């Protein structure tokens, strides 16, 4: 497969307009993420963080765009090397499946319709789980793990998929401070192994220590750059101010959004 012009880019989106039927969420959004980056998308609820990720991986069809590339390839060609970790509520955690079986799904996703697990896959699956500190949970039902452990299981699955780009939708939701920092450490470890991480998050606490690139999004790109450039008071007021409730003279509460 011939590589596109943006081969050094993990994600290349130009002038993307996207959303749901009858509801345009993103207006002419352009964003580039270099390979090996730790990138975060921040913004208010409804600002299009999830929509951007879902459109990038083909879960939503874009309305318009001038360029859309995953790992320098068309989205269709690049998707096999992309792992998308959906929001917690989009996964059926009651499903009776073991941690090892979830991790092995990374191989299946890569192999496609005729995929079968080999002995080597099982060995690799156990090794990766050990690496992620989950070796003793191999046969545990995945839904019985904590939120942080579930995220690690899915990251382990991404490793077996040999994904180079990992997209996470609100990975820190429901995690305590310790689990959030463990997840951040894991992001750094994965980057050292050549992975690119892009996470949509509402949590601004660990942005400066976890990520090296931030996109502030509220339907359109407000600002992007290094965390210290983006996380200024003026930018945060622009990004979130209209979503703060305001109390009027007679005590009525209004929210602009």
């Amino acid at each position, binding site marked *: 497969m011939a590589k596109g012009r943006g081969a050094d880019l993990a994600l290349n989106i130009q002038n993307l307009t996207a959303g749901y*039927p009858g509801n345009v969420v993103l207006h002419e959004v352009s964003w580039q993420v270099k390979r090996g980056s730790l990138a975060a998308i921040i913004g208010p609820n409804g600002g299009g963080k999830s929509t951007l990720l*879902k459109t990038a*991986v*083909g*879960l939503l069809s874009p309305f318009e765009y001038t360029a859309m590339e995953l790992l320098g390839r068309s989205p*269709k060609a690049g*998707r*096999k090397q*992309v*792992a*998308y*970790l*959906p929001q917690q509520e*989009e*996964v*059926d955690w*009651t*499903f*009776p*499946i*073991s941690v090892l*079986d*979830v991790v*092995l*799904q990374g191989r*299946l*996703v*890569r192999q*496609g*319709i005729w*995929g079968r*697990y080999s002995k080597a896959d099982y060995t690799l699956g156990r090794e990766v789980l050990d690496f992620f500190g989950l070796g003793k949970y191999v046969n545990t*039902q995945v839904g019985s793990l904590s939120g942080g452990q579930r995220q690690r299981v*899915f990251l382990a699955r991404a490793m077996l*998929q040999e*994904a180079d780009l990992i*997209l996470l939708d609100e990975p820190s939701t429901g995690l305590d401070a310790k689990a959030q920092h463990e997840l951040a450490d894991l992001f750094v470890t994965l980057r050292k192994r050549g992975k690119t991480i892009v996470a949509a998050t509402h949590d601004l606490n660990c942005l400066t220590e976890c990520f090296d690139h931030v996109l502030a999004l509220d339907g359109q790109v407000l600002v992007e750059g290094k965390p210290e450039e983006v996380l200024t008071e003026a930018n945060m007021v622009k990004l979130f101010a209209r979503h703060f409730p305001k109390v009027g003279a007679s005590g009525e509460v209004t929210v602009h959004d």
Partner: protein
Amino acid sequence: MIDLLLEPFQYGFMVRAFLGTGLVAVVAAAVGTFVVLKRLAFLGDAISHTAFTGIAIALLLGVSIYMGAMALAVLTALGVVFLTRTSRINDDTALAILFTGVFALGIVLLSGTPGFSGDLNSLLLGSVMAIQTREIILIGIAAVVLGLIMAFFYHHFVLVSFDPVGAEAAGFPVAFFQSLLLVVISAAIVISIQAVGVVLVVALLITPAAAASLITHRLEKLILLSSAFGLLASFFGLYISYFFGAPPGATVVLVATVFFGLVLGVQKLRRV
């Protein structure tokens, strides 16, 4: 006592009934595991009812009733996949309107055709005692094919049931395997209709699997246990039918329901 237990087997129709019901009970219960886990019981009920209309149309056209049933069942299943992926319509409501309407059409078609009143009853409640060797062979072949599909694509079905969003994002053919799973469920329903009838067939899918799900949280064990419950229910149900003269479809489902009640009761007692 042994003579009494062996008594039904001196009749060819009872041997065929045991064979036919046992086969479909095992297949339906195994496939039913996914129906229970993905909360598709209502869809199973809808498929069985539209399959009835497929049978009615097949009888009118003079073609195989299995072909007619399968065609309508698969159309229903794939129609649901199409609806859920392309529209924001309330799935349950659309499905209920669709399947009751199609079922009503089947009743009108059959009742308006002279000589079909007896067939209507056997289709609704099953007629396993009238099952022929040719049909047993057909059911056997279908059971083997469905078993092979389930075994070969087991991990694929698990993936699209557990995390369809993550799988689709990575380019895995989720819609294909969701459709294939529904086709397998449809086929299991179609081959089970003769045993227990349109009205009760969904019980053969969900009751053994629901009972098994109370005992184990390992999917492989769940499928095996569900199949075992299905087989035992068909076995004891047919005995009860033979000795008490009750409709076999109803007694099989009744035994499966009793199994579920017993498992539930034991679980409750163990928690006390």
